[in-house]
């Protein structure tokens, strides 16, 4: 290939990327209008966005640093409880509740992360699973504060005040969708910015060859800890949004099976791809919604999905498409 053709190729590549980005955002922005035609509903779209964000936060660590955390439901759930507790006991303010949840999950995640960043591979996964369960038991046992097994309620998302106008996001599900979409866009924008920054490139370098990164003088543990902590903040933020979606927080959101779902969404969509986890979340949530409406033994089918994806689509849907295009 000549140099000119190469440049041209790169040009079409970046055009294609731009087109894909534009298509994704337009599809998301118009979701409340096209979803009813394919059998969806706005609340489902909101849930997909939030769970997709959680899966992207897991993938921020898994796909771009190569570190497998199997306990992200803990930070997600802590975000939900932080948000719910603030709304219930402290102040009737949605932005403050989001902040409280994000800080609670992110800070605790960062603290525990410091204990475990030296572990690798399966050992890291195992320790994150086990530590994640701590918060499940706390939420379960401390029923005077958290409502125990029944979950935390009642609390309701507060209207948004913009000085001159007040938006009701409790009753108006379309307005709430756009609020969640804005929150999603802010987080995803930050995530993308971080991944394009020198810090993000370093994360990928660690993923590709940790030993070489170490020889280049990169403080690997520090980078992994920062990436882990950031990922916990994103997960907690998604969790806080999830509490707003449901007006409810319950211990199952903290359970390791929820972590497994997040990892599955990331793998299903394609974990080497920035947008993969969102696609995974769409497929996973819609499938779960559908299967659980036709059979009570839906867990068997979700289990089968795990097995089939691992055996036949280990690169996920986007990875599979990319592979086919190259071939």
């Amino acid at each position, binding site marked *: 290939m000549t140099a000119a053709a190469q440049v041209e190729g790169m040009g079409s590549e970046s055009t294609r990327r731009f087109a894909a980005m534009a298509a994704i955002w337009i599809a998301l922005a118009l979701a409340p209008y096209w979803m009813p035609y394919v059998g969806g509903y706005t609340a489902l779209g909101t849930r997909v966005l939030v769970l997709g964000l959680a899966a992207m936060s897991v993938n921020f660590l898994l796909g771009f640093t190569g570190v*497998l955390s199997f306990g992200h439901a803990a930070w997600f759930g802590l975000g939900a409880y932080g948000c719910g507790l603030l709304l219930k006991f402290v102040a009737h303010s949605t932005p403050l509740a989001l902040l409280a949840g994000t800080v609670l999950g992110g800070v605790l995640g960062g603290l525990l992360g410091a204990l475990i960043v*030296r572990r690798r591979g*399966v050992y890291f996964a195992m320790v994150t699973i*086990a530590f994640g*369960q701590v918060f499940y038991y706390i939420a379960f*046992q401390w029923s005077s504060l958290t409502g125990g097994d029944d979950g935390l309620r009642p609390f309701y998302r507060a209207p948004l005040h913009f000085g001159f106008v007040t938006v009701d996001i409790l009753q108006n599900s379309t307005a709430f969708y756009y609020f969640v979409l804005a929150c999603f866009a802010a987080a995803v924008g930050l995530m993308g910015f971080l991944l394009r920054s020198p810090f993000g490139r370093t994360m990928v370098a660690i993923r590709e060859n940790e030993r070489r990164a170490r020889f280049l003088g990169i403080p690997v543990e520090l980078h992994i800890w920062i990436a882990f902590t950031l990922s916990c903040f994103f997960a907690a933020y998604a969790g806080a949004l999830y509490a707003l979606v449901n007006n409810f927080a319950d211990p199952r959101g903290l359970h390791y099976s929820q972590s497994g779902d997040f990892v599955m969404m990331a793998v299903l969509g394609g974990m080497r791809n920035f947008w993969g986890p969102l696609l995974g979340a769409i497929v996973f949530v819609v499938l779960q919604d559908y299967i659980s409406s036709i059979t009570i033994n839906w867990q*068997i089918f979700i289990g089968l999905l795990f097995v089939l994806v*691992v055996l036949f689509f280990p690169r996920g849907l986007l990875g599979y498409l990319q592979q086919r295009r190259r071939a």
Partner: protein
Amino acid sequence: MTQLLLFNVTNGLIIGAFYVLMAIGLSLILNLSNVINFAHGGFLVVGGYLAFALQPYLGFWGALIAAPFLTAIIGWAIERVLIRRLYGRDPLYSLLLTFGLAFIFEDGTRYIWGAQGKPVGIPEALARPLSNSLFFITGYRLFMVGVVAVTVTLLFLLLRYTRSGVRIRAGTLDLETVAALGINVRALRSLNFAVGIFLAGLSGVLAGGQLGLEPTMGASVLMPSFIAIIVGGVGSLAGTLVGGLLIGVASGITAVFLPAASEAIMYVLMALVLMLRPRGLFGEEGLLT
């Protein structure tokens, strides 16, 4: 007070022995195959329900022996068909696959036997309490500890004195060299996996006799088993043994003073170990870290 404490320590040791049986199976598989077997709790459930199904024909003693063997055969088949394909790939995949299997086992048993609890009947002689005056422990609980002790001792002897056992231990340290010496590593891993699953099946039968069977029972003992391995140190079976007993006793003692924290204490213990001795009590540095 002393009596209560003593009772809870004994109780803790009994529960700990049970964790040990689970955790050693997990540990065997983790050490040789680098697979976190999330479905281990699922195999426990399968073992328990198989015993329940076989008991009318074989009696308690027959089921106690047959059910773990059948579970091991199922485990062996699953290793051959599914898990074997994932060796050498990112451990993420075996984790997700066994995670999915756990769903299938749990819901599958619920589909076949129903969500209601099922009892595994135990012989009359074992159901009686040992002593009414001192403290209340049934013969069955002591019997459980005895079975665990015999099984674990046998396992350690097999690992020490049989050819396959020595190979499994060698493979834990350096699988490549073992393979280079002309040993069939694939068969070794299958055998090792089946042994681990046998222990899970046995745990299922024992637990069924004590608590009855429920489809969700596997998930609840999975976490303590993980913690036992982390506390004891990855790569060391003796460590897993100590770790399991330790968390059992710790949660037994905590149950006296602060019942709500009896589960949380295990995690506190794990955090302490990770802070003070990151490789675990008996873990070898550099292995799996």
